[in-house]
């Protein structure tokens, strides 16, 4: 209990004293996660819409695989990306290992199936009610997908926010591919892991509270901007 109070006080002071290291870590966490969410959403939302609208031979198997990939172990993803980006790996020449870019790549791999699965569920339900109308209007497949993505946008924001929630709290993969290098790849979660390892629980808890507050603030901001709860049944 004492550690919890100490953690809260520590979090407060870190914020109130404009601790430069803290703000750098917070900004890097946001930069890596937001970039990963934007790229993953750009892949996952059309993928979810495509799976809802198109009928092809291995569609069910693809959906099952996508759902299964939601539970990808981050450490395994980290190891996989590490091998690909390491000096002896196929993409070693790019020199991306232990950079924020490597962390973004790992996060994209982790959250794309999650966003795509949730998006697929939301769009599939909407497609069931739009199906006859859009077919009747002679829409192309691209027009159907665009329409469904736009009209399901509030559900899809939730899908992307689920991806954000998973990515911002991720530690295993980005520790492996980022290396937790001070002033380069250290983010909130890896900093928490480091401080916990050093036995500085109050600082670790302080960073933890900031991480939770950050996740809540981003979610609330996105919902406020997109007016999720104001547009009646939308």
């Amino acid at each position: 209990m004492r550690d919890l109070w100490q953690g809260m006080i520590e979090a407060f002071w870190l914020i109130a004293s404009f601790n430069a290291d803290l703000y750098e870590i917070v900004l890097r966490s946001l930069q890596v996660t937001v970039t990963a969410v934007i790229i993953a959403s750009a892949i996952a939302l059309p993928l979810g819409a495509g799976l809802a609208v198109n009928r092809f031979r291995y569609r069910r198997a693809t959906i099952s695989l996508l759902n299964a990939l939601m539970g990808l172990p981050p450490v395994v993803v980290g190891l996989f990306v590490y091998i690909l980006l390491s000096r002896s790996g196929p993409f070693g020449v790019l020199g991306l290992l232990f950079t924020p870019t490597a962390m973004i790549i790992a996060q994209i791999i982790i959250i794309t199936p999650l966003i795509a699965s949730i998006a697929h569920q939301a769009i599939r339900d909407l497609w069931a009610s739009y199906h006859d109308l859009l077919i009747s209007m002679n829409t192309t497949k691209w027009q159907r997908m665009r329409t469904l993505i736009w009209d399901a946008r509030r559900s899809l924001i939730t899908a992307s926010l689920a991806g954000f929630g998973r990515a911002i709290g991720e530690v295993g993969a980005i520790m492996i591919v980022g290396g937790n290098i001070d002033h380069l790849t250290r983010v909130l979660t890896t900093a928490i892991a480091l401080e916990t390892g050093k036995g500085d629980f109050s600082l670790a808890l302080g960073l933890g509270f900031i991480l939770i507050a950050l996740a809540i603030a981003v979610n609330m901001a996105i919902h406020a901007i997109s007016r999720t709860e104001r547009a009646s049944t939308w």
Partner: protein
Amino acid sequence: MVASILPLTLTDATVRKGGKTIIGPMSETIGPSGFTIFMGPNGSGKTTLLRLMHGLEHPRGGSVTWQLPAAQARMKQAFVFQTPVMMRRTVVENIAYPLRVRGEAKNWAHAEAARWADIIGLGNALEQNAEVLSGGEKQKLAVARALIVQPEVLFLDEPTANLDGKATREIEGILLAAQADGVRILMATHHLGQARRLASDIIFLYQGQVHERAAAEEFFNTPRTPESKSFLSGDIVE
């Protein structure tokens, strides 16, 4: 002179679902003018036949052919469903949608949609969420959304089935105006009174077949088959 997609020709067209024949084999021709009403008891195949002609159902056997190739013919048709589908958009965006998917500029499409919203009495609700409209308003919106593309053929599947008298009268007025503008209307309905008010000719369906086809006056005054006589007299036809 713009080429017409009519006549529509069904040649031994058959629709089967779950091993059961829903329609056909049916051979009929739909000519270029008039207000045809499809009547018949529940399960007689009215909805399936309209969907088959529009291309929402594919014939298991036989063929459904328009005067023009199918892709061109589809562009000159519109369909109003029994339960109106409201897109998660505003009233003006819903009505403008068919124009937008045809590549029309947003400003023009929205101006045209606003004009149609005025016609159907929704001119002051342009920016309202279409999903919160009343049942009658939704169906009027669906009719406006169908007519905005100036279809040559308009299919309607019991468009006033769940509406009150006022909304029904308003929709009938819109349909008669559309017919006067040259739109060929093919509509399914259960309402005998509505059929009497609107129809130029009647196609009476029974067990997936055209049981009787006649000019409206002739059908109502001298029905030829026992089933259509029973139907018109209000008896239960199974």
